Structures are given as C-alpha cells and as structure tokens.
C-alpha cells in the first residue's frame, strides 16, 4: 500500500450500473425478438439488424464527431432503441425507411436533447410515429405471419385496422370478429398480423416479468395502463357491444402490450414517483382507447405515450415521494 485513499462515504457501490440495466432490457426483449423472427422470417431479422446497427452508428457518429465526446454506445441504450424501433415496424419495411426511422429516433429525439437521460419523448416512438406519418403505405402494409420458412407472403389488415374499417362500413363488432376469425388464443400466442413486436403477447409478458423480477422497472405504470384500458373499454363495451370492442380484445391487440411494458416504462420519459407513474399510466390507457374508439387511426398507443411523455415534468413537479416525518 503506497498511498491511502480518502473519500467521503459511502465506500461501496451497488453492482447495478446503467449498462447492466440496459442489458437487462435487451435480455427482456429477446423473447419478443425471437418470436418475431420465427413468425415473420428472415425479413424481420434484416429489419432488426438495420435498425439496431443504424441506431448505434448514428449515436456513435453524433457523439464522436459532432459533440466530440466519448462514445456512449457502451451503455447499450442505443441498442435498446434500435430493437424497440424494429419491433414497432412491419417486417416488410424497406431498409432505407428503417434507417430514416433510426435517424429521427436517435438523431432528433435523443441526441438533440442532449443524449441519454435528457430526452423528453421516447426516441423509438418518435421514430415510429415519424415513419407512420411520412410513409403510411409502408407502415400500414402488414403481413400475415408466414413463419421462418414460409414462402407466400399474404398481406392484410391488423385486427384493430380491420375492425375499424368494418365499423366505418356499418358492420358490428361480433360479426367482424367472426368473419375475420379472430380468437383470443391466437392473439395471445401469435399469428395476428401487425408490427413485428406485436405478434406474441406471451413473449412480451415474459420479458416484462423478467424486468420486474430483476427490479429494473416497477410494474405500476404498465399495470395502470392495462387496468385503465380494461376498465374504460369494459364500460363502453357493456354500453354497446355492437359498436365497441371488448376489454380482452383491446388488451391483446395492437401495440398495447409492447408499449405499456417497454416504451411507457422507459426511465427517462416516465415520472420518477410511483404516484406520478400511475397517473401517467391512466392517461396513456385513456388516450389510447379514445383514439382507438373515436380517432381516425386504428391504433393509438404510440400517440398516447408521446402525449403523456410531455406531461412528465409536470407530474414530477406535482407528485413527490412520501418523506419521513413530514405529513
């Protein structure tokens, strides 16, 4: 011992670092990734690869050459954004559209705000919504999953899209469900059509449980979104089952599970306190349903999360932790 170190307490540090947390998110996303590749085939793997590599390359380029700082790729957050973006796109998206999405996600939504921890909106969702508005044809061209070795691609509408369209033509919900042959078990396990990451509810829930067990996230935001969607859709459905879809259908379709488990729980863009998180979740659930029921888009999770993202600073101001010894 040559020199004696002197520093203020504490002298120990937990082993959980940003890198460990982000790596856990990647691990939690793996079931959804694997399932999406199995169901959508090699094309999906290509979209994933383009998205992850573009996100990482863009972040590296911006930190090293524009900001002239140390690269932040080591924290894995760019990889998380890349995977989430890919899971939010149809497997048929051309590579250059994916790249533009990555550019908007990392370049605009993340780095212009100052990088990890500074952004107001979830980067992957900003990328997705940008593409949805700019390239509606590609973004709504869903493919019915044909599997890893399937040949004939069949394109079709998502359940949410098909029902919305049918309702506008005057059909009733139960008729549409029957005519399209939608079943809940199908939605739960896969083969439903839509964004790659929306294919299998079980895969997403497995990842979510992993994150909660590893204490990476707390379950309250997700549960309050799902609870709100279930409760509000239950009221509408009971009032008019011909016009409004039922709670289970709403929970299992579209990007609700992917959004509520992985996007709404993003540390940076969600409230710091549990109380704030529950309000945040209720808002997302409510806005999602309003868009689904009354909006012109069949799906509203992305918009709902982005809208509620903008309320986070306010929620952080309003809701604080319960302090010791202070009423």
């Amino acid at each position, binding site marked *: *011992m040559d*020199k*004696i*170190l*002197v*520093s*203020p*307490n*504490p*002298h*120990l*540090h*937990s082993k*959980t*670092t*940003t890198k*460990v*947390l982000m790596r856990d998110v990647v691990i939690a996303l793996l079931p959804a990734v694997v399932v999406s590749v199995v169901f959508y085939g090699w094309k999906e793997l290509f979209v994933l690869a383009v998205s992850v590599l573009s996100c990482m390359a863009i972040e590296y380029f911006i930190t090293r050459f524009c900001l002239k700082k140390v690269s*932040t790729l080591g*924290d894995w*957050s760019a990889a998380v954004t890349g995977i989430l973006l890919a899971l939010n796109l149809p497997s048929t998206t051309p590579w250059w559209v994916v790249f533009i999405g990555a550019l908007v996600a990392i370049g605009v939504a993340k780095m212009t705000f*100052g*990088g*990890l*921890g*500074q952004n107001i909106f979830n980067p992957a969702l900003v990328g997705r919504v940008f593409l949805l508005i700019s390239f509606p044809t590609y973004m709504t061209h869903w493919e019915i999953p044909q599997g890893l070795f399937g040949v004939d691609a069949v394109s079709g509408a998502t359940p949410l899209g098909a029902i919305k369209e049918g309702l506008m033509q005057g059909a009733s919900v139960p008729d549409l469900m029957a005519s399209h042959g939608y079943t809940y078990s199908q939605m739960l396990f896969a083969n439903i059509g839509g964004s790659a990451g929306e294919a299998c509810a079980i895969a997403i829930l497995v990842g979510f449980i992993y994150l909660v067990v590893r204490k990476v996230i707390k379950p309250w935001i997700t549960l309050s979104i799902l609870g709100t969607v279930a409760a509000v859709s239950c009221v509408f459905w009971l009032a008019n089952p011909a016009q409004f879809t039922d709670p289970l259908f709403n929970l299992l379709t579209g990007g609700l599970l992917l959004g509520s488990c992985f996007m709404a729980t993003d*540390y*940076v863009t969600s409230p*710091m*306190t549990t109380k704030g998180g529950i309000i945040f979740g209720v808002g997302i659930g409510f806005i999602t349903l309003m868009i689904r029921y009354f909006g012109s888009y069949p799906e509203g999770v992305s918009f709902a999360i982005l809208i509620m993202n903008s309320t986070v600073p306010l929620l952080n101001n309003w809701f*604080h*932790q*319960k*302090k*010791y*010894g*202070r009423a």
Partner: protein
Amino acid sequence: MARRTFSIGGVHPADSKISRDCKLEYLPIPPTVYIALSQHIGAPAKPVVEVGDKVKVGQVIAEPGAFMSAYIHSSVSGTVKSIGPRKDLSGNNQMVVEIAVEGDEWMENIDRTDTLVTDIPEDPKAIIEKIKLGGVVGLGGATFPTHVKLSPPPGKKCEMLIINGCECEPYLTSDFRTLLEKGEQVVVGTAIIKKALGVDKATIAIEDNKPEAIDHITKVVESLKAKGPEYSGIEVLSLMKKYPEGGEKQLIDAVMHRQVKSGGLPIDVGAVVDNVCTALAVYEAVQKNKPLIDNSVTVTGECFPKQANLIVRVGTPLNYVIDFLGGVPETAAKVISGGPMMGKSIANLDAATMKGTGGLLFLTREQTKRMPESSCIRCGKCADACPMGLEPFLLNRLAKAGDTDALEANAVQDCIMCGCCLYSCPAGIPLLDVISQARGQVMGIMRARAAAAKAAAEAAKAKTE
C-alpha cells in the same frame, strides 16, 4: 408474518460479515496512549491532570466542559507525558492527553470480576449520575453523552427504550459478538437504562441476519425475568436485514411505527435509542464502577490477513492495532473507521482510537472504486433507496444550481448521510458528495435565520419593556 423493517427506502448491500466467528479478544496494552479530549458530541472535556501526574486505569483525566459534554478517564496506568494537539484520523489537530504506560494498575473501586450483578439501584438520579461519572457516550456512532440522553427535557415522556443491535453496516460484527458473549451484561444494562428513564417497555432490536444473537438474547431475557420486576417489559425484536436499519429514525419507525418530525428528537415520539455497546458500558459503569475506558472494534476486510473483534483501550494508536494483526496488507487502498456505508476514510493511521471507534475496515482499490460518472437516466433508484423519502436526483440538480430555497423546500436538511443514494446510482453520480455540501449550506442558513429571529424577538421585547 411479514418481516418487520422501516417503511421508506433502504438498500441491501452484501453482508460481508467475515469476522462474525471471531471471538472478542483483548488487545495488549500499547506503550503509549493518546486520549482525545473531544470524543463526544458537545463541548470538549477540560483536562484535570498535569504533565508528570501519575494516573491509574479509570482515573478521571478530564471533566465535562459544559452541560453537553462527558468525563474522560485514563484507559491505562502510567505518567501523563503531554497535553497538546495531535493529528486525528482525518489529519486535523485535536487536543489529546498522552500517557506513557507503566504496568496496569486500576482504580480500587472498580470491580474487575466477571460476576454478573443483577440488582439494579433504585434511584434513577443516582443511576444517571453514575453513568455521567463513567463517561458513557453513545457507541452507535454519534457519541452523544448518554447521561444527557437519559435526562429528557421537562414535559417529554419516554414510552419505549430501544436497544439498537441492528448493526446494519456490512462487515461490522462487534455488536454481534458483544450480544453473544456479553448478552447478560447488555440485558442488565438495558434494565438499568429502563429504570433511569422510568419506562415500562424496552425492545432489543436485532436484524435477522444474526439469528444466534436473537436466540441468545431471548434466552437471557427469559432467565433474567426471574430476577425481579425490573426485568419485565424487555422484549427482543427480530427485524428484516436492511440498511440503514440502525439509523435512529429508521429504527424508531421499524419498532414503534412512529416517525420523528423533521428537526425533532426521538423523545418527541416517546423513544430513546441506545446501542447495545452503550448498554454494556452502562452496565459496567453502574454495576462495576468501570468507566468507559475500552470498547470493541471489528478489524476486518477481505484483503486483511486476520479478522478480529478486539477490545481496545481508548487512545490506542491505530497502527498498534493493525501491527498486532500483521500490518497493513499490500493490496489495501482504503482504511475506514466504522462501516463501509457511513464510516470515515482514515487519512492518518497514526491517529488513536476513541470511545466511538467501532471498526477498522480495509478495502482494496477494486472494492471501493467509484464508477466514472455518466448521465442521469432518471431511473429514480436514488429516490427509492433514500430512507428519508427525499429525491436525491432533484437535490443534486438544485445543489448544482445553487438554489438554497428550493433545497430547503425539498428537505435537504433531513438527509442523514447514509449513502444509500450514491450506493444505488447506476450512473455513478456522486449524489451524496453534492448533497452533503448543500445540506451543510442550508443548515447554516436555517441556523442564521433562527438566530436572527431570536435576536429580533428579543429586541422587540426590550422595546416594549
């Protein structure tokens, strides 16, 4: 049944109690001791010996310098060599009495036998006086003079005495060994403090990572209940292991489900908290006439060759303790006085032990390395960890902006410096470093404001008269 613990925050660092099986042993007496005059919270003691005086073990060498102060006794027999400044473990000068050791001659009135004395004096005032004369201070870390704590201000009534056997800091095991090996004395000490406070209920709280101690103390309490009514009302409570359970405020929350108001004292909610080693010191002072001249110190660390729980005379140079166990290991980078969460890193190994020294911990560079700081990812782990329910991320930001009003509004002054925020931050942000500075600043402002308000009130009073 759910395991009981405090309600807000807390972290779970690895236990690392590698010295838990090392029995308490007496460290040989060093050739020279350096006994500091300020080993407690409050005014330094005033020396009553002069250079050249012969002293015995247990002889008073300094008297309380104010109401909030404590007696200091010689921990050895020998000759007073000097009274003057010497560097303490941070390297700051502190007044010490240097005594060259000659033999080991004790004051005659001290009972040095092992006989357990279970008859407790009847008069609370006499007990408190004996505790005061024994120089007993809180050995849980804060070294608050015990006789002051046991004399609640008029109008305040103690409802529950809590004996703190949590030892929630990783590595430290001296409280654990004391509970196992001197459990009888601790329980008698508890009954004495209970008597002094005139309170019916006492709880000895022990974390459930020490089941042997819980079992042993439970048995001791049961067997002592036969000795007399003063032993009834003492209970042993097992608490879930969680840091900082041994923090006074957290312990009161865990045991009594009450919370001390900001700026308040435990007695405001009817609680008095004393450490197990304090209870032992009280026993020795009251029943054996033995003042606080030695205390137990855990010497430990994975890189340290020999783990030990030593009973060390107050004023023993740290180097002497370390050399007795084989010297500072090559790989050690940091030496800590106390535990790894709240302990102080030592700058000067030539410093001497004090009444409150509870541990000497050696950590390697790898163990104690701070991560490079990266961006806050707003995960909220610091807020989840804070046992006071504060929001360290927010305090950190406000401190950097220098916004003292907002810092006060967000209760930076309530911080207990436990280190949970910095421990848990995944981005390696030095939260506590920043917050503790801001806390000092805000507390200074609050004190100045209180003083100004007092002065203004007095001036107004003088005017009307």
